[in-house]
Structure formats: structure tokens, C-alpha cells
């Protein structure tokens, strides 16, 4: 397993080198990520009040719940993005392949290379071309790129964007349509070969056609990546995910297979929420 601590590896190679064999062999049943008693704060306000949940390996886990319940905060704690906001803090444990990413000697920067993130609003870098956007993560991290053209094509094909932009690779990232921008952001994320992809309402700024493309893409990507997706749409959760977690007022109410959660909720509050009685 690649190290997460701050000491640079002796040969200077990155722990997330694209060619490195991944510790994700099929048949490995241990959860990819696990939160234990996770508490998150903004100042003194407690946003997450002790959440424990598992992200199953190479599965899609969706996180649903009413606005303000802490579902975005939850995924932002999984790649240590919560703490970049001034005044934000985290307590509890989050493990990635058994390793606590909040341990003292863990470099959050290395965590984020292995746990990628896609945001609510597409945020391609506007000063970079489509091509440079795909390569941005590797360039920022100073990783070697053997064949940039091939990598760009591969990543853009993976997000079903290649045919649409193959003649426009030099255009600025911000000139694409919103749906294309979001797929470009996913391409930028997977170019770093993360092991987990966190998606924070990735379709909320998109139209239904673009949304359908992203959902298809999520299915495709779950062959290779462990995915957590925050969504405000229960239909979307039902369509794309294998597991669904219901968060309410900073607590995990229920985590079950998506089929179970929607057809046979164990908890009364889950049932109220999915049947539209509140939220």
C-alpha cells in the first residue's frame, strides 16, 4: 500500500504513480474506507455528530439527506477537504485501507491524491486548455507523464468526452458546456488514478441529458473506483448506487444496500424521508 506519511520516498517517485499496481484486487472484501465516530465542526457548531460508515470497495455508495444535514461535510471529511476552510475541524477516525488518514504523521496532500473529488459546480481551471486541465493533477504534483497525448485521450474517453472535444483540446476549459465541464473535471480527477472518487452533488448544476451521461459514467467508473456520491435526488441514488446512507441532522440514520433502504427501510425516519413526509 502506498505510504501517506510526509517522508518523500527515496527515489522521488510519487506514491500514486499511474503504473503502480493497486491494492484493489477483486475478492478483497474489506471496506475501502471506514469512518468511525466522525465528528466535524465549523467553529463550535457540530455538523457531524459521530458518524460511522463504510465505503464498500469498488461500489457506489450514495449519501442522501435533507439540505444542511451534513452530507457534503461527510464526504469532505473523507479526503480532508473539510479542514481547508478556516475554522473547520474534525475529530474521530477515517481509515483508507485500514490506515487512519487523520493520524498525526499523515500528509493531507497525499490523501487527496488517492481520494479524488468532484464538486457541485464544474470547476475546470479557466486559464488552462482542455488538455492541460486533464493533466493538471499530474503537473501540479510533478508526476512524470510518459505519453501526455495518450493519457489525455484515455481519460477523456473514460468520461465519454473524447468524441466531443477531440478537435478542441486547445480550447480553454471554461468554454465547454456545463455538462462537458463536469465530465472534464471527472477526467481531471481520474487522470491522477485515485482509488476513491468523492462526488458532491455532481449533477445539481446540470440539465437532464448531461445528468444522464454522468450517471452512466458513474456506473462505468465503479468497475475501477470506489465511489461516494452526495445527492439530493433519491431517484439518482436509486439509479446509480449499490449502497445508500441516509444522514439526518449530522447523524447516520441508516446505511443499507440501495434496494433495501428504499424498499424496506429499518428506521422510521428513513421511511418518512424516502416517502416524502419531510425534507
Amino acid at each position, binding site marked *: 500500500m502506498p505510504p501517506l506519511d510526509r517522508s518523500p520516498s527515496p527515489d522521488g517517485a510519487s506514491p*500514486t504513480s499511474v503504473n503502480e499496481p493497486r491494492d484493489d484486487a477483486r475478492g478483497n472484501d474489506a471496506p475501502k474506507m471506514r469512518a468511525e465516530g466522525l465528528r466535524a465542526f465549523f467553529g463550535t457548531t457540530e455538523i457531524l455528530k459521530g458518524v460511522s460508515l463504510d465505503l464498500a470497495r469498488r461500489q457506489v455508495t450514495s449519501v442522501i439527506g435533507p439540505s444542511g444535514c451534513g452530507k457534503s461535510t461527510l464526504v469532505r471529511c473523507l479526503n480532508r477537504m473539510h479542514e481547508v476552510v478556516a475554522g473547520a475541524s474534525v475529530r474521530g477516525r477515517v481509515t483508507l485501507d485500514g490506515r487512519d488518514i487523520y493520524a498525526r504523521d499523515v500528509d493531507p*496532500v497525499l490523501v487527496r*491524491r488517492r481520494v479524488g473529488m468532484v*464538486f457541485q459546480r464544474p*470547476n475546470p*481551471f479557466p*486559464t*488552462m486548455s482542455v488538455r492541460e486541465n486533464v493533466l493538471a493533477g499530474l503537473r*501540479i*504534483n510533478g508526476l512524470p507523464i510518459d505519453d501526455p497525448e495518450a493519457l489525455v485521450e484515455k481519460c477523456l474517453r473514460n468520461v465519454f468526452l473524447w468524441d466531443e472535444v477531440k478537435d478542441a483540446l486547445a480550447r480553454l476549459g471554461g468554454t465547454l458546456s456545463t455538462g462537458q465541464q463536469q465530465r472534464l473535471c471527472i477526467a481531471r480527477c481520474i487522470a491522477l488514478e485515485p482509488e476513491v472518487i468523492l462526488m458532491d452533488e455532481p449533477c445539481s448544476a446540470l440539465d437532464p441529458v448531461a445528468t444522464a451521461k454522468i450517471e452512466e459514467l458513474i456506473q462505468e467508473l465503479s468497475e475501477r473506483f470506489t465511489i461516494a456520491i452526495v445527492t439530493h435526488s433519491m431517484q439518482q441514488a436509486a439509479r446509480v448506487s449499490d449502497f445508500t446512507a441516509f444522514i439526518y441532522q449530522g447523524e447516520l440514520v441508516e446505511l443499507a444496500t440501495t434496494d433495501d433502504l428504499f424498499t424496506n427501510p429499518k428506521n422510521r425516519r428513513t421511511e418518512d424521508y424516502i416517502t416524502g413526509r419531510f425534507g
Partner: protein
Amino acid sequence: MATASSNDDPAAPGAEAAPRFDREVNVGDIVFRAVTAFAGVLVILALALVVVDLGAASGRTLVRDGASFLGARAWDPVHGLFGALPFLYGSVVTSIAAVVGAVPIAFGIAVYLTEYAPLWLRGPLGFLVELLAAVPSVVYGFWGVLVLVPWLRTTGEPALASALGFLPIFQGPPVGNGMLAAVLIIGLMVLPTISSVSREVLSAVPLALREGAQALGATRSEMLRAVVFPYARSGLAGAVLLGTGRALGETMAVTMVIGNRPTIAASAFAPASTMATVIANQYDEASGAHLEALATLGLLLLALTVALNVAARLLAVRTRTAGSALPPRAPRASLLP
């Protein structure tokens, strides 16, 4: 009205009046609009008047003998010789040197305040920097006369001469009053302009882009280099231009320390003069061709500073609309102080 029976007046209380959309004349609105429009026009008129009057006072020196006026080195009012070159040289060299010196520090302040400083420090430190801009020019000048110039004469310039004396600019007698003192004072005075505008530009870089870079595993400095600086590039250039404009126009403090001699010397220790300082020093004893020459210098100075401000504004606007619909990290005030 079909429902009206006992009372046929639709305006009477209780009656169901048909809605009326007739255009009405609102006198208050018209008057208010006229007053505010007048205030707006006044600004344009004032600027136009300044240009026209300066142009008239210059006696069309630029039209009559533009090249020879701009290119002549001699400035001798007693013998009727008026050449602008020493002042152009003094203004341009002191301004550029001051800005070159101030930019790294100003950018450093801006980056520290927007990216690194702890939250509790950002407000007070930012306020202190802005306060530097609020100190009256004459106070800087007085400090220059009392502290900076004597120190340069006794310590600073001799030290420079002995360490770097092989360079022509650090040769010559350590006078104190001169280019170097002016450059230091101007640099101090443009620091808040450049740093506060840069700070605004940097904080206008959308949070979504910063987080996008961080989520890719960028450290803070990698994020700055890859995303923030490229996005803010033109705005930062605008900040530098604004600072240059401020430096060119700086008068009072510069007059007090620059030595006021219309000469072009290689040495940074030597006294010099700028367009702004020569006008301030000589306007009240000037008449005829002398006054025309000063007015011409005034016109040139005005044109230069206007051009720099317009360029700075254009660059700032480009940052604000750099092809992204993402909201800025912080709401921004006007880019011009």
C-alpha cells in the same frame, strides 16, 4: 361598471375600481434624476476643464516645438531655456525603480494576507497596510528629511559606495538628498496601493478553483502557482500599473528629499527633479515661457497617469471576467482606490 348600483363613482371608497395603469408624471423622480446626473456630468466637466486650461496655459508648446522640448536637457529659466528631459528622466526612473523595489514586498504582503495569515491577523494587518496609504504625503516627506536623508548621507550611501562602488550608480558624493532618497520614499508610498489592489485581486480568485486544485493534491504553494496566479495575472499587472501611476504623481514627499536640481546624473546619490516636483517648486515665480513649459509638463504628467490608470482598469476588468462563471471567493470592492 356592471356591479356598481347605488354609487357610480369608481374612485369612491368601497367601490371596486378598475385598475389604472396610466403613466403619471413624478416630479420628485425627475428632479432627483437631474441632480444626480448633474453630479456625474460635473466630474467629466472638471476633467475636461483641466485639460483645456492646461492646454491653453501651455501656449501650445508641444505643438510648436514638441520634439525639441521633450529632448532638450537644459532647463534654465533665467536664460529662457526649457527642456523637459531631466524631469521626464527623473519621473520615469524614480517611479520605475520604486515600483520594482515595492512589487515583491507588496505581492508578499498580499499573498500572506490572503493565503497564509491566520484569520485573526488578516483584518488588523490588512488595515495597517491600508493605513500606510492614508498617511499624508508631507508626513512621509518630513520623516524623509529628518531621518532618511541624514541616515543616507552618513551611513547608507557610504556603505553602498564602498560595497558596490564599481557601479556608476553608486559613485559620487553621498549627498543624502537625491534620487535614492526619492526612490525609497516613493516605494514606501506605493506599497499600500499595490498590496491592497493585489490582495483584492487574489481574494477574487474563485474558491471553487482553489478547492479544485487542493482536491488534486496541490499544496498551498502548488495551488498558488498552478491556479491562483495564472487566474489573477492581469489583475496583478493592473495593480503594478496603478502603483506606477501613483509613483509618477507623487509630489510633496519627493520634493522634500530629491534635491530639486534639473540634472541627469548617473549616480543615484545625486540630486534630481521630477515633472511633479519642478511644477510644485517653480509655479509661483514663473511667467511667460517658463509658465508655459511648466503647464506642458503638467499636461504630460496628466496624460501619463490617465493612460496608466485606464490600462490598469482594463486589466482588472479582465481578471474579473476571466471566462468563468464561478463566484469570487470574497465580494470585491472597486479596484481603484
